[in-house]
């Protein structure tokens, strides 16, 4: 009996120790800022700041986690990352269905890299009526398809949507299970390559400004560690300047293509389809206005679409999802 008591005491002690360790971990003063990022070229760009050690130079401790796009948003909702790279439309979807966020910077807008790629023999978007399209339902590429359908005067209910993870789209198109896929580079390019003769029937270049790409932060984290996030913004503009300088193109391609494991030659065309925004270019986009020229207008349009599609029921307060102040402060400081 005595032995058993002893044993029980030991077990309790061990348990308490473990608990203490776990809580100590949780309360540890300065965790690195955790940021989930994925394979869209405008987000892969963060790799330049990581590889070049610019975050250390600015004195901000960050940990970037590389994931698939939807998985990264799931991780954000689950609270495993403090921020995630997503599009303005998907920030609303994530907010309306899981967890709100605040965009503190706009990295780029999609200028052709988001595509609907159709199998050989299909020439236009209208030809896809009554056919199957594989894409991530309810997310950015779906929005692009609906917008494209609207512009072409097609009723989107005529398409059959097959929910397909973006990184699986090349194989799915090749297998013939669908007649078209919706994806972005590098996956859309891979699909074009895998199925020779396939062609894009709709790209984001047909509706520039429908997709803005953001860094969206957990509001709590932003409030608690605003200074650190300011430093992240600062690093971003260093990255943007680096990429936009023609002299650096080979070095930039080297870093970017390595992250997604393709060759620099293959990566080069992506730079055309993802328009990285410099500080001067982004300031007008941060102004509140109607239409696709402003991130506010674009996000409003995305919100209407989401409600219409039944992604969530009530329109969201889109203004809450956007916070230009960190970018504006940075712009002031470098004037």
């Amino acid at each position, binding site marked *: 009996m005595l032995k058993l008591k002893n044993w029980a005491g030991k077990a309790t002690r061990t348990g308490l120790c473990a608990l203490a360790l776990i809580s100590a971990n949780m309360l540890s003063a300065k965790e690195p800022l955790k940021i989930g990022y994925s394979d869209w070229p405008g987000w892969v760009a963060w790799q330049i700041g990581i590889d070049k050690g610019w975050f250390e130079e600015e004195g901000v401790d960050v940990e970037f*986690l*590389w994931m698939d796009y939807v998985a990264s948003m799931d991780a954000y909702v689950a609270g495993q990352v403090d921020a995630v790279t997503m599009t303005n439309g998907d920030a609303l979807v994530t907010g309306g269905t899981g967890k709100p966020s605040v965009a503190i910077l706009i990295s780029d807008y999609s200028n052709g890299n988001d595509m609907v790629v159709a199998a050989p023999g299909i020439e236009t978007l209208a030809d896809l009526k009554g056919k199957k399209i594989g894409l991530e339902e309810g997310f950015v590429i779906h929005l692009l398809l609906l917008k494209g359908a609207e512009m072409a005067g097609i009723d989107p209910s005529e398409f059959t949507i097959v929910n397909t993870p973006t990184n699986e789209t090349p194989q799915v198109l090749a297998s013939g299970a669908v007649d078209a896929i919706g994806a972005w580079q590098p996956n859309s390019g*891979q699909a*074009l*390559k895998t199925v020779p003769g396939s062609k894009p029937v709709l790209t984001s270049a047909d509706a520039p400004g429908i997709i803005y790409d953001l860094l969206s932060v957990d509001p709590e984290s932003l409030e608690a560690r605003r200074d650190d996030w300011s430093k992240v913004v600062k690093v971003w503009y260093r990255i943007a300047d680096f990429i936009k300088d023609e002299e650096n193109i080979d070095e930039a391609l080297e870093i970017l293509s390595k992250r997604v494991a393709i060759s620099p*030659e*293959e990566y080069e065309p992506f730079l055309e*389809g993802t328009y990285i925004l410099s500080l001067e270019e982004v300031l007008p986009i941060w102004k509140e206005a109607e239409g696709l020229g402003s991130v506010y207008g674009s996000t409003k349009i995305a919100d209407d679409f989401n409600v219409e599609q039944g992604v969530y029921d009530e329109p969201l307060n889109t203004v809450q999802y956007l916070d230009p102040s960190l970018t504006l402060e940075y712009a002031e400081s470098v004037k």
Partner: protein
Amino acid sequence: MKNSSQFKAPTTPWFAVRKELSAKRRSLLIAASFILPILLWSIVSYTPFIWHPDIKLEISADRENVTTVFTAGNHLSKEYFPGFVEAVEAENSEILAARASGESTNSGFRARRANLKILRHMAPVAIANGWLTREEAEDDSQLYQVWQGVAEGSLVGTKVKLSDQNIALIKRNWELLSAKSPTFVSKSLPETPLEKLVPQGRPANPVYLPAPHEVVIQGYHDFTQETDPDKPSMWQRYKHSLRIVFFGFMLSAFVGVPMGILCGTFDFFSKLFEPFIDFFRYMPAPAFSTLLVAVFLAHDAPKIALVFLGTFFQMVLVVSNTTRQLDASLIEAAQTLGAKTFTMIRRVIIPGITPNLYNDMRILLGWSWTWLVIAELIGVKSGLTEFIETQGRWRNFDSVFPIIIMIGVTGFVTDQILASLRKYFFPWTPESSEKKHGFIGRFVLWMLDRKVYDTPKNGKA
């Protein structure tokens, strides 16, 4: 059967019902079982008239206003390839026509960039012909020298023969290049558009069946190339994967073995735990992956947890079953000698089941390997599986095969080693005493005792 001196001694047949073959024949067949698949693979890969529906590019070209970039090594179907060649030839004749009429489309940086890309399309040819190493081929000035060499005829392709059309084209381009500068200076590349190398290729099997030598070369390259410091090298990935299997399995053994022994010893625990475990093991472990990520967050913890989940429940049932099969007379004997419950477990049951437990563990270790690939896909992808995933997605199957083979070899070798060690751990078990020492075993025995083979002992002490 007659057996006189006039007749040749009868050879034992290859096909005898339930008879063991001679040791020589056995080793021959074991070797053949590995050689045959490789032979079959080689035949399909190296005889050009068998299958080969694709063209594998040796030289590629970019096309204007097309975002799809084909690079050397890509496969195109035999139907599509001629169209690709025609498209490039058409662009070349446009370039020449524009040059003749004196109009230029691009200027400045863009024009130089386009020409630089054309220069770099020579890189795969230079590597294949052994003119440059992979590292040297990334250096534009070295490539420039290659252009010069080909144009002046000092470099002639052996592995990849340049077509006459391409050689003529290279000479025309070199005239333009050398007029600007004899060595590479990025600022002084001509702004006149150069002609593009016309794509060349050779028949190949589909991308998912690379030839054996391609797999070997690519595997060697993947394992030896310098990776950037923040990315794991292949060996680090390998260690990472091993760690996940090992920790998942160890954790599971740490909990599962004692639990299994308790269940096998006491009916109380058996009825308390086993029904639920029996029910739980039918839930597929991967179904819990998202749950595990939510509980254990990113990194290795959810992966180890998945290996644990996949192994643990089987383990408890297997171990409890092994415990129950222990010879009842041993237990009765111990009870007669007055052993108490705990003494019985410690001195009779555990030693009694250890040889069989060892076998169970060996099989379960193999079982936990099967969970590795699924485990590494959850949360943040990692280890060998991340590599398989990315390379597979880009259809670089020559990089995928070495990894798959390596996982297989690791599992197989571990299992063989553990199986051969059993004889030395548990020499008293009947299976062990019948087994002959293997080559390694004989060597070790000789190392320990040089006199061991001096007097024949018929393999028995």
